[in-house]
Structures are given as C-alpha cells and as structure tokens.
C-alpha cells in the first residue's frame, strides 16, 4: 500500500478554509478526533474511531472524503463506500450529508443502494457511480459479485464501516470482512475507517479493517473520551420484585410515573412479548392519556415508521421497544431510558443508555427495572460495570464456513479466480486469518459439486477449474441462484397477522380480509388454538385460525384477559462477564447492603437454609418435593448453556438408573428431577457429582444428543441456506419456511449418517458451540468447577431454588421428547374413547 509512517503534523490535520468556515457558520468547533481522522486519511492509513454516541462520529468518518472530493472537483467514479448494518441508517446518513454538501457547494454526489433501490437506478449506479455510495453488507456482497465489479471499484479510495462493533459479532460481519478483502484486492489504494461504540479491546476490532498480512501497518486507533457520566440507577419500587418471571408487573406504577415526569422516555425490553405486556399494562393505568407507543420488529413496517416519525416530531411521551431501536438513528429528544428486565450485558446497557440525550456533554439518565430477584443481582452487577466503564463485548469471531461458501460462489460470479491467490485473500480477513487450507479447499469443493466423498455430481458442477488453473462458473443460472440466496440473515419462519371480522354464513365461518398488523413467529402461532386470546400490536386479539399462511384474528371485547402462552426470558443470554460479577456478589454478604432489602433477605435465608457457593464453586442442591427428587445447580452461565447442560445431565442420570423425568433452565441455574432419590445416591457414594459434571460429557454424550436435537437441526438449516445447499426459494416458487424445515431435517439425517465430517456439518457444529447450544461456554464452566462442586443435601427446597423451580411449566420446549409425547397423545385419545 506504499504507506509512510506518520505523525499527525499540524499541516496534515488542517481543515481547508471552506470547511473551517462551514463549521464556524454553524457555531461548531471541529473536534480533535475529526482532525485526527483527517490526518490518518491523508497519510494513507486506515483508522478505528472509538467514541460514545453523540460525539459526531459519522461526520468524522466522512470528513476526509469530503475534503478530498472538494480538492478534486472533476473526479468521476466511486470514491467512498459507506456500509451500515441498517438500511434505515444508510438513508438517514444520506440525509445528514446533504447539509455540508449543499451548504459548502461541494461537487459531491451522494446516493444510497439498498434492497429498495429500483432496478433502473441500480443499473445507472453501475454505469455512472456517485462519489459516495451508502449501502449494507448484503448489497456489498452483490456488488462485488457483479461482472463490472472490477471497473466499478478500481478507483475506490475509502470505505467507512458504521456501527462496526455491532456488525462484527455475527455472520454478517464474516461476510462483510470477506467483502472488504475483495475491495482491497480490487482497489489496493483503499483505506478504511471503522466507527464503533466503546469496546473492550479496540486493537482486536481494528484488525478487522485491514488485511491480516505481515508487514502491513495496523490501523490508527482514535479514542474519544466518554462524556458526562450517566445518571443511572435501579428504579425503586414499592412492591418487592418476585422470585421469578419477566413481566416487571410489580414496578409498573413507578415506570408510569417516571414516564409522566419526563419529556420523552424510551422503555427498552428484551422480547416482543415483554413489549406487548408492558405496553398493555401502561395503557391500563394511563389516566393522564399520555402518548405511549409501541415499537418492535414484528410490527408492520408502516406502523413502525409512523411511530418513528411521531417520535422525531416530539409528539410522543414514551415508546416501549425492543432492540429494534438499539442501533444508530437519532430519534429525537429522549431524556430518559428505562430498561425493563436485566440488560444481560454491560455494553448493551451502555448502548441503550446512549439513546438518551444525544449530547456528549450532558449526562444521560436511565433506570433499570429488574423483573425478578436474580435480575436485581444482575442489574446491580451491570451498574457496577458501567460505573467502572468495564465492557463485555464478545470475543472476536472465527469466520463461519457456510458464509465462506457463499462468498466463494460470489467470487466466481464476478470472474475467474485462482484458488491459491484467493485463499491468501480470504486469510486477510480477520475472522478467517487462521483458516486451514483444508477447510478452504473443502468449501471450494462444496461450492463446486456439494463436496461429497461420493463424487457423483461432477457433471452438474456449479464451478469448474479450467486448464488455465482458474475456477469459473459453468452457467449463467449459477449467478442467478447466487443473487437470490445472498446474505446471512435466515429469518425464523414468520406468519402475517391479519385482523379480520369473521362472519357466520350458512353455518360456515367466513373470514373477511382486513388490516395486516404485523408478523409472528410460526412456532408461536402453532401454540395457539382457535379462541385463544393473545396480545399483539397493543391489542388483545382472538385467534381464529391459520388460513393460507396467515394468522387470522379478531378483536376481543374490552376487558378480555389475554392468554399469552409464554414470556420468554429474553433472546440474549447473560454475558459471562456479568455472570462472574453476580457470582462474586452472592459470595460477598458484606456487599449485600447495596441490594434492596427483600433481595438481601432472600440471600440471607439461602445462607441459613442451605449454603452460598464461594467464588469458583458450583453449588448443587438436592431435595425431595411432591413425590419427586430434585437436583438444582447454579452455574450462572446463561439459559442456552444451561439447556444444553440439562439435556446432557438427564442422559447421565438415566444411565445411572436414577430415572430422570425432565428439567428446566433459566439464565442462572437449572433443575432436573426424577423418581429416584438423587441426593441419597450422592451421599451413599453411588453417584459422584464430579463424574456427573465431568467435562467429558461434551464428547460422546453431546454427539449422541446432537444427532436428535431439534436445535441442531435448526442450526444446520441456517448453515445449509447460507451456504447455498438449500435455496431460499426456487425461481417462481416461494417455499414456506415449514416446507424448507422439513426437507433440511431429512437432509441432516442422511448426511449425518453417511458423511458425518461433511463441511456443512462442521459448520453447523461450530455454530452450535457458540450459538443456540453455547457448548463452548458450558465447557469452560465445567473445567472451571472441576473439583469444586459442593453438594447441599436438603429436606426441602431452598430459597435460591424457588426462582429456578418456578420456571417449571412455564417454558416452551422443542420436540425432543417426541416419543413420550406421542404416547401421551395416544393415551389421551384412549381415555376419551373409554368415557
């Protein structure tokens, strides 16, 4: 890249007069980090800008491009590519760039390219590109797979990656990292700038911005100090938080009053169902007629846009929302953030608090509302972390092989490639820096003919290696398929919810089409029977049935109680960072005075009736109750890891002939139960807890269980779609999610039996390790507690265990116990027949 090491000299960092005048005209001072970025860019270096919300990050990111374009008024072709995780953010930024461009009369053309951009405009953009193009990772993947990619990107100077901290934690980030390396190959002169919120290890994040090759300089890291400390506390409530549950009903009065006393509040919750519940409860007590709105990802897009507009115009008093509002956009004059439920991670909490008061020099104000007593501990831990500005951003990812498969096909669509050179390029991407050649070759073989040991698809190959040693696509249809399948977001199958008024006509119920309210997950709709009532889009709806892949609902009479079947605890598992803080808090009675009294009393009771685990210990309690024997453990490793642990523990208990019947898990612990006396087996030495929790359960036991696991099948389905084994849709034929699910399950079964080491199964297992099964975290925990498991044999349940036991009967599960359930269903039929 021909880079000279730089020291920011005053001259390099100087702003051209037109820009200085513009800043001055707005009454702004150019900020130090904005000049630092300019200097970096002028020295031809990439940079990571780490700054809290409201620091003028975006302008800083574009400033070098605007300056450079102002100095070269006749320049044609694409100069700067901006990539954001959200389409809406790209559109928003385009609007914000208009001000400096028009007011300074800069010769700069700015355009967006998203899924909504019409075809004729896309074609024109390829022919005559704007100077600055704002887009998303998926659109970048499509652009670099374009046959004109080389010409289109050859003059590219700069790439701006917004919200980088959020992008890099997912497969989308993997895809983007590969796309970025392609850009470095097409335009070696390019420099990048990453814009990020505060993260734990900026050096690790910075690696993402440049090719990982020896001899290349690492990006500059420019850090903006945090602004005023946030004013943040736990919302005091008159009623004590319950032992379990996620509704926060006990604090609804106080939440309402806080909303009333502020200008505009954002009420963050962790799931859609919590959002609906909180919204419903707030309106129930809304005697002041406060303008309280609802915003979550399942709502109809039109309705969401209306809420966003109302917010920006200052017509709302509060918005109850899920993480759909977590990222990016400046929504208006928010002066209070209320986080209902535990934040699950300190960094997420900081992000959410950042929504309040978008000015760096004024403190944001926020309240946490723990929904149960464990969450009180978690909120306390999160507050301590925020006070120390400690961050728990996740570790850097290892690039997924299914994403790589998609990228390889895209690469081939753009033109012939040499495998050796391409392998080196791919390893330049930080997530793929450690990619073994064998994995790369397997992925290429997968893209070519499915990658099966039984090489029976050679003549159907999608890409082939020619005599010149270059790989090429075989037919134009391949590129067509690629375009349909691009992207890494695999949606849960969703069904549209329609409000209709069913009429009785001639003994038949006729459903008339009505307004679409939004979408729900298919599994949720499956759990409903006609006549059930549930809360959606802020109303209590009656479920009428599923017709032609739509959920048909009707309005209920005022005052109807909803029968919402499940309040899931949240999508995000407790971060390990917060978990260790919670464990430390429980182990330190000296600190309990900082907790609300009911919570401190609860822990005190636990100390008297059972025991408290010391730091590093795993407490396992056993006790009889209602004719069953229970084993409760408290690893504090998050719901996903506990689910997996529960599955594996019950298998082992079964082998020990202790006749386990089932288990439940939440973020903090798990309870397993059975017919035989588990506690007695331990005290008599027939069952060793050390062996029961031995890390080797992650070997054969895990493999056996995975074979049948619905979660594993779902994970495989995602990989198969991303990798392009299964098409998202066939041309002209939309498959419903359900049909796809069924066929991928069959594919999984066949593949597992006949080629267990296939690259897609390896990809699925790697996902399972960190995704839905959280195996890696479970493994870390098992190793950590080895030799430090303490057993408390009790006569009855302990105070701590109540919070876990209350989950029994609350959780929805997947079809693991299918045989058992079918037998029950059959028995239920028999009973009916015998009446």
């Amino acid at each position, binding site marked *: 890249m021909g880079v000279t090491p730089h020291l920011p000299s005053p001259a390099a960092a100087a702003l051209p007069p037109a820009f200085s005048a513009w800043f001055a005209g707005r009454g702004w001072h150019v900020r130090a980090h904005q000049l630092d970025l300019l200097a970096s860019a002028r020295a031809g270096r990439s940079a990571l800008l780490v700054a809290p919300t409201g620091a003028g990050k975006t302008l800083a990111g574009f400033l070098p491009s605007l300056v450079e374009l102002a100095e070269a008024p006749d320049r044609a072709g694409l100069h700067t590519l901006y990539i954001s995780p959200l389409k809406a953010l790209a559109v928003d930024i385009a609007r914000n760039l208009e001000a400096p461009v028009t007011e300074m009369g800069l010769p700069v053309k700015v355009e967006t390219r998203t899924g909504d951009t019409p075809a004729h405009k896309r074609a024109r953009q390829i022919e005559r590109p704007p100077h600055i193009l704002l887009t998303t990772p998926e659109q970048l993947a499509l652009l670099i797979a374009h046959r004109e990619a080389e010409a289109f990107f050859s003059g590219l100077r700069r790439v701006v990656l917004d919200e980088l901290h959020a992008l890099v934690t997912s497969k989308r980030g993997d895809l983007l990292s590969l796309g970025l390396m392609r850009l470095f190959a097409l335009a070696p002169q390019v420099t990048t700038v990453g814009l990020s919120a505060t993260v734990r290890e900026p050096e690790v994040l910075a690696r993402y911005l440049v090719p990982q090759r020896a001899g290349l300089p690492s990006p500059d890291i420019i850090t903006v100090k945090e602004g005023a400390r946030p004013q943040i506390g736990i919302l005091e409530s008159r009623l004590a938080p319950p032992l379990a549950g996620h509704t926060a009903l006990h604090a609804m009065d106080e939440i309402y009053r806080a909303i009333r006393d502020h200008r505009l509040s954002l009420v963050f919750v962790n799931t859609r169902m919590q959002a609906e519940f909180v919204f419903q409860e707030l309106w129930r007590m809304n005697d002041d007629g406060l303008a309280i709105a609802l915003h979550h990802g399942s709502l109809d897009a039109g309705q969401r846009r209306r809420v966003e507009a109302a917010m920006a115009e200052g017509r709302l008093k509060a918005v109850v929302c899920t993480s759909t509002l977590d990222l990016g956009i400046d929504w208006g004059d928010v002066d209070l953030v209320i986080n209902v439920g535990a934040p699950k991670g300190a960094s997420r909490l900081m992000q959410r608090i950042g929504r309040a008061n978008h000015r760096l020099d004024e403190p944001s104000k926020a309240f946490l509302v723990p929904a149960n007593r464990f969450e009180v501990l978690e909120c306390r831990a999160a507050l301590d972390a925020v006070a120390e500005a400690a961050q728990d951003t996740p570790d850097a990812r290892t690039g997924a092989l299914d994403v790589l498969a998609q990228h390889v096909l895209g690469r081939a669509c753009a033109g012939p490639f040499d495998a050796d050179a391409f392998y080196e390029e791919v390893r330049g991407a930080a997530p793929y820096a450690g990619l073994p050649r064998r994995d790369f070759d397997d992925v290429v073989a*997968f893209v070519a*003919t*499915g*990658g*099966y040991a*039984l090489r*029976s698809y050679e003549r*159907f190959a*999608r890409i082939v290696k020619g005599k010149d040693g270059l790989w090429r696509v075989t*037919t134009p*249809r*391949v590129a067509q*398929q690629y375009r349909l399948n691009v992207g890494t977001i695999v949606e849960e199958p969703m069904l549209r919810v329609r409000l209709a008024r069913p009429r009785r006509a001639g003994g038949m119920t006729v459903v008339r089409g009505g307004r679409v309210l939004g979408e729900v997950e298919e599994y949720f709709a*499956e*759990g409903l029977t006609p006549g059930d009532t549930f809360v959606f889009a802020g109303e209590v709806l009656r479920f009428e049935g*599923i017709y032609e892949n739509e959920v048909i609902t009707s309005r209920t009479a005022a005052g109807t109680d909803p029968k919402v079947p499940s309040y899931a605890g949240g999508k995000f598992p407790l971060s390990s960072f917060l978990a260790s803080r919670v464990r430390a808090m429980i182990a330190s009675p000296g600190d309990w005075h900082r907790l609300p009294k009911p919570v401190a009393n609860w822990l005190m009771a636990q100390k008297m009736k059972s025991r408290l685990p010391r730091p590093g210990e795993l407490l396992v309690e056993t006790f009889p109750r209602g004719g069953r024997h229970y084993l409760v453990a408290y690893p504090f490793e998050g719901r996903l890891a506990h689910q997996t642990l*529960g*599955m594996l523990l*019950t298998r082992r208990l*079964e082998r020990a002939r202790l006749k*386990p*019947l*089932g*288990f*439940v898990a939440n973020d903090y612990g798990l309870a397993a139960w059975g017919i035989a006396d588990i506690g007695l087996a331990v005290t008599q030495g027939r069952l060793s807890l050390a062996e029961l929790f031995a890390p080797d359960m992650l070997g054969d036991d895990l493999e056996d269980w995975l074979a049948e696991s619905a979660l594993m099948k779902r994970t495989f389905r995602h990989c198969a779609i991303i990798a392009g*084994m*299964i*098409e998202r849709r066939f041309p002209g034929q939309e498959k*419903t999610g359900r049909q796809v699910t*069924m*066929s991928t399950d*069959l*594919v999984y*079964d*066949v*593949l597992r*039996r*006949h*080629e267990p080491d*296939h690259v897609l199964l390896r990809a699925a297992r790697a996902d399972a390790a960190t995704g839905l099964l959280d195996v890696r975290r479970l493994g870390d925990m098992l190793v950590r507690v080895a030799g430090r498991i303490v057993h408390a044999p009790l006569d009855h349940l302990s105070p701590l265990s109540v919070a876990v036991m209350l989950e*029994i*009967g609350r*959780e*929805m*599960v*997947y*079809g*693991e*116990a*299918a*045989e*058992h*359930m*079918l*037998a*029950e*269903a*059959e028995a*239920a*039929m028999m009973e009916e027949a015998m009446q």
Partner: protein
Amino acid sequence: MNAMGGEAGTAGAAQVLRLGRLDLVADPAGALFVADEGLLVVADLHLEKASSFAGRGVFLPPYDTRATLAAVARLVARYAPRAVVALGDSFHDAGAHGRLDTRDSEALAALQRGRDWLWVTGNHDPQVPRAAGGESAAELRLADVVLRHEPADDGTAEIVGHMHPAAKVRLTGRSVRRRCFAAGARRIVMPALGALTGGLNLRDAAFRPLFPEGVTAHVLGQRLYAIGWPLLLPD
C-alpha cells in the same frame, strides 16, 4: 418442561390394521406386511431424488438411494417376504434408474434375489425400465383390496401411496411432525419411505375427500402411535 422420551420394550413393535378381508401388519418403519401372502409393501421410495436436484444445481447429499435401500433391506430381513411390492414413485424421474451407482444397483439386485418383485407404476415412474428387474404393473389385487399408486374412486378398498402423509401432533404446548399411515374405512394411504421424501400434512385439503368417514393417523416412531383427528394439527 423437558420430559424424557422413550417407551422401552416396544421398539419395532408392529400393529395390525384391517382393510377389507386383509389383515395388514403395519411396521413402524413405514411398510405393510401381508402375512398370509408373505408380501411386503413399501411406497414412494423416490430413488435418486438427490441426483435429480443436482441437475438444477442443488447438491443434496447423494446418499438418499443408499439410505432408502438400506431401510428396505432392514424390512426384508425382518419379514423375509416371498414378494415385495413397491407402490409407485419408486424412481424419482425417468432417468433415475440409469443414475444408480454400482453399489446401489447391486444392493437392489440383492434385495430382489430369491423373491418376486413388483414395481407398481406411479406418476414419477410411469414406465419402469426392464433393467430394474422384477415385474411392473399399474395395480395389484389381493382378496377384495386393490394396491395402486394413486387413490382412485371406484368403490373398492385400496392401499395407495402418492400422498406422503405426515401427522402433526401437539400436547401440552409441544408439537411433533412425523410420517404416518392414514387409515380409513376403505383406504390406507402409506407413508413415503424415501430418505429425502417430505410429508404432506394429513389435515391438508387434499386428504379430505379420501376419508369421508374419518381417518386415524398411525404415526411412525419407535412403535406406531394411533392418533385421531382431534389431536391432529395443520401446519
């Protein structure tokens, strides 16, 4: 709640269904055995389905034929039938037999050795190549029951395939979807045996005219589970 599965001691247990004057042993792997005749009936094998997709650039695992023939082999070993009837759609397309690899061809030949083999023709395989061995016919009559691929409406009791019935059952909030036999007073629709063959929900409108007097799903699993209409769910 995560209940433990398993019905120990019932693995492989078959069940007897009656149709017309025939007693049929329904095997939980998805086949029927007519004990009096020593006749094993399997349906919708869809051999070489994966390679058929490969032609469109969709590379499903090329092991479906192997897996399906292995399932048939297990049934043959269990019942040692005098004759096997494959109830149509045995081959996924006209070229399927030609795409069998040597190993699969030999496995098929081994299954046919020493017993009669009848390919009932189906919509996917209206003509079965001679090279596939055995005989081929549009239908077969046993006592007062006709065995054919697609349901007909001629008043005779019949055993058919073609529809790939699957049942979805829910209890206490959990649901499971499995292949099943659909058994009514005059008709049994067999589950598909092909390894990559999906299922059509029994609640689908396509099944309604076939069972005017009601239907029971005999759901495949470690044994057969008889589930009545009220517990069956649509997709």
